[in-house]
């Protein structure tokens, strides 16, 4: 029943075999197809041809093994694509990469060097994992220490032992004994989180216990610490905590020594690549919108380009002087005064923050946002109506401005739909930029832009810089930094893990400290309020709530045995998908203001050329893109102003002085390049 082999074949080639195209050294079994390459394998019954040399016993019901396979690859295995060193179980698929032995039955192919034993119904581990993924565990994509994830989902990064039984992904390293019902420690928490805890999103030094979530980044292995952890202080001990015995958390001790934790840099690069582009676009759109609003206003409403002779008190020196030298001197003085005002204000803000005068800061920012949302928008509306000659009565105007302002205050200071809050932040940035464009004289404005980028660079990167101190203090205290001074592209809703029968209690928490903060800028005419939420060290599990829960359910009785039991249960809880796509990126409102100011000034300049505006716009976007690239590489707060403003200024002056005459000449003759 075989067809002819068209090439010489060794004996016993093709019982029911079809045409063997090349020399086969194999014994083809019945109903096997022809091997098209030299196969060194014994294809089992109903196996297909191996197209590459395979070691014996490739594919019981296996299909074509494309690459060499170590013995016992795939009983019902499918095609082993690479040198599999694994034993594929029956009905397992082929491993496409070398896998270490014991990829259990019903496991799929391990596509990378899995060092793990996949349990039944487990999926392939795509990265090397340490042994003992529990049954029904999913693949660990990063090296995990043993006992990661009972009903765990994919652990994306290395996990210290006992991270997350029903664990979800722990984003950062966790030291042992992270509390029972704890939530995530968002900064360097030295607390012990309790079970049902949420992810630690910062450098948590805690051990998450049962029903805790997984660590998503590399646990602090003593030799591989990138961030030196402070010593653990003030660990509250609750019942059931304890010594090394309890660290097992109800699991049998691991049978193999934990594997070496693999470097996670390649992981980070991959994630950077996939999600970095998305974040860049998430910032391009609002920056573009703000600039479009400013340019549209400048081009249509002449109020903002008129020189009324009025000046801000911060720039007292006039620029319409007789000599150029005098003008230069005046502008330098103006810029100096403005910058020193900004520096002083920033220092005051940092001091107030450090000494926890939250009320003062809140009040200050509240007042300034009040000013922006009511007074400046009223003036803007008035000028727009004047320009388009719209007749408007005072009552309607009052209603409009009142509604606009109040909704803005609510959205910015309290809660509101994300898009509305973003829209309001863009609008107040645009208003602020327009005010700057109107009241700052020409040379002063350019000088201020240049100097403030330098200041921004120093303030954020120098160890004693005020903004860096601010960021670090906020991280230490696990607080978001003035959420209303920062434009954030996502907001995270974290569902309360404890399902006490009182219903889910969704809480909004902006992951302000999760994503690196690009810049925080506070101006003298400061922008936006800061509803500093009270420090949530107990994660909302206030004593009140705990008491209530104990009252309802009885005291917590989490012991080793109960924890082990629970770990064996399949996880029915829908785990929230909080992988990296949902991490947003943040940009300070000051950045919006200065970008828009640059582009607005470019379009307001006497020549009124659109090419200059367009060139500055593209330059700023490219600068922002480069800044975000650096952010992805360095992963800490970076100043967003310097690169963009530098590119913007260079391209503005170059385009205005060099390109414009060239393009004008070309347009005159209608030549095209």
């Amino acid at each position, binding site marked *: 029943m075989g067809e002819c082999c068209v090439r010489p074949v060794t004996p016993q080639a093709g019982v029911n075999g079809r045409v063997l195209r090349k020399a086969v050294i194999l014994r083809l079994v019945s109903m096997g197809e022809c091997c098209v390459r030299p196969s060194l394998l014994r294809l089992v019954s109903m196996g297909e041809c191996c197209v590459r040399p395979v070691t014996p016993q490739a594919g019981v019901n296996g299909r074509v093994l494309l690459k060499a396979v170590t013995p016992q690859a795939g009983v019902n295995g499918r095609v082993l694509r690479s040198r599999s060193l694994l034993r594929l179980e029956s009905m397992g698929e082929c491993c496409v990469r070398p896998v270490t032995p014991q990829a259990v039955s019903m496991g799929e192919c391990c596509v990378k060097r899995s060092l793990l034993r996949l349990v039944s119904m487990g999926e392939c581990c795509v990265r090397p994992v340490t042994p003992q993924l529990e049954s029904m565990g999913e693949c660990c994509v990063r090296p995990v220490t043993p006992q990661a994830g009972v009903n765990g989902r994919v652990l994306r990064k290395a996990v210290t032992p006992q991270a997350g039984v029903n664990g979800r992904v722990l984003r950062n390293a966790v030291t042992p004994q992270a509390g029972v019902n704890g939530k995530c420690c968002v900064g360097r928490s030295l607390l012990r989180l309790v079970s049902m805890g949420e992810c630690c999103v910062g450098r948590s030094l805690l051990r998450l216990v049962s029903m805790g979530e997984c660590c998503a980044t590399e646990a602090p292995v003593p030799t591989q610490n990138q961030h030196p952890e402070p010593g653990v202080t003030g660990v509250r001990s609750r019942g059931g905590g304890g010594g090394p015995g309890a660290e097992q958390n109800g699991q049998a001790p691991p049978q193999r020594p934990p594997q070496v934790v693999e470097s996670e840099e390649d992981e980070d690069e991959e994630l950077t*690549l*996939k999600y970095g*582009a998305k974040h860049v*676009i998430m910032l391009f759109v609002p920056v573009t919108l703000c600039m479009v609003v400013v340019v549209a206003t400048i081009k249509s409403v002449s109020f903002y380009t008129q020189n009324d002779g009025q000046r801000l008190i911060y720039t007292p020196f006039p620029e319409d002087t007789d000599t150029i030298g005098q003008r230069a001197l005046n502008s330098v003085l103006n810029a100096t005064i403005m910058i020193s005002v900004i520096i002083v204000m920033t220092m005051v803000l940092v001091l107030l923050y450090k000494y926890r005068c939250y009320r003062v800061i809140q009040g200050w920012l509240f007042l300034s946002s009040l000013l922006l949302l009511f007074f400046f928008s009223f003036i803007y509306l008035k000028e727009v109506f004047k320009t388009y000659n719209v007749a408007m009565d005072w009552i309607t105007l009052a209603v409009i401005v009142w509604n606009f302002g109040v909704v803005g205050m609510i959205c910015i200071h309290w809660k509101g739909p994300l898009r509305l809050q973003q829209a309001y932040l863009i609008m107040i940035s645009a208003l602020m930029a327009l005010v700057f464009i109107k009241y700052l004289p020409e040379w002063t404005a350019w000088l201020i832009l240049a100097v403030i980028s330098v200041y921004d660079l120093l303030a954020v990167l120098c160890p004693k810089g005020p903004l860096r101190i601010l960021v670090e203090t906020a991280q230490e205290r696990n607080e978001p930094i003035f959420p209303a001074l920062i434009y954030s592209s996502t907001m995270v809703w974290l569902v309360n893990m404890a399902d006490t029968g009182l219903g889910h209690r969704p809480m909004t928490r902006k992951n302000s400290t999760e994503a690196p903060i690009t810049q925080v800028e506070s101006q003298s005419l400061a922008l936006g309020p800061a509803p500093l939420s009270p420090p949530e060290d107990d994660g909302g599990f206030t004593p009140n709530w705990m008491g209530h829960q104990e009252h309802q359910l009885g005291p917590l009785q989490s012991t080793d045995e109960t924890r082990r039991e629970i770990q064996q249960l399949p996880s029915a809880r829908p785990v929230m998908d909080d992988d990296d796509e949902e991490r947003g990126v943040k940009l300070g409102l000051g950045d919006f203001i200065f970008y828009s100011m640059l582009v607005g000034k470019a379009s307001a300049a006497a020549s009124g050329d659109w*090419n200059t505006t367009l060139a500055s716009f593209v*330059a700023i976007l*490219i600068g922002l893109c480069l800044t975000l690239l650096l952010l992805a590489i360095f992963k800490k707060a970076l100043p967003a102003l310097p690169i963009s403003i530098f590119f913007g200024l260079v391209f503005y002056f170059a385009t205005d002085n060099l390109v414009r005459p060239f393009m004008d000449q070309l*347009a005159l003759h209608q*030549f095209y*390049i």
Partner: protein
Amino acid sequence: MTASVFFGCTFIAFGPAIALFLFTIARDPLRVIFLIAGAFFWLCSLLLSSLVWFITVQISNKESSSQQKGLLIFGVVLSVLLQETFRFGYYKLLKKANEGLLMLSAEETMPISIRQLAYVSGLGFGFMSGAFSMINILADSVGPGTIGIHGDSQHFFLSSAFMTMAIVLLHMFWGVVFFDSCEKQHWWSLAVVVISHLLVSCLTFQNPQYVGSLVPTYIIVFLVGLWAFFCAGGSLRNLKLCLTCKDKDFLLANHRPR
């Protein structure tokens, strides 16, 4: 000069480009970034060429108009050559970045192929080139005025719009052909691209005679477009399959790889 002239000329000049952007590029953030980077590179080339032109003008005789015209022609030729040089530079940069990204990422395939990059960067160049040529003219067309009141051509806006559309499409096609010939090391086709760009620019020297400049330009657009189609892997068979909706690859194009 009314709103209808403004909108008409805008859509003539930028309609195909905006449609291409909305349907193929806007969804993918990586492509948008490379588009803007391409625009930036074109801008840099323009900056450099206008710097050189500016310097030559400053040291020349500003009174003699024939000399100024000659310098302008020199500026145009220089600008074309610099644009192509910067396109080559962008190609090299993208190759290096791609290799780096491949090495770093754990995946085996690149998130964006060199052909997509060719298309996107060509379109970026085209957008910027078209914008710089056309935006000031469009801004002027909104305001009051009469075209050609001193005896110049009445078709100024319309011809500018058509020329801009041709330039935008041409940049895109040139991008595809350029990258493809760099990949395959066909230096002769590279030279043909540069020569065709020079040809198109030089055709505009006869410009109040629009017949002489627009018609050959559109013939070149058509030819280069055909060449780009074949370079990008198209063929009559593909086209037929695509148009009769039988092309499995195309239908599966929106499926994400596992």
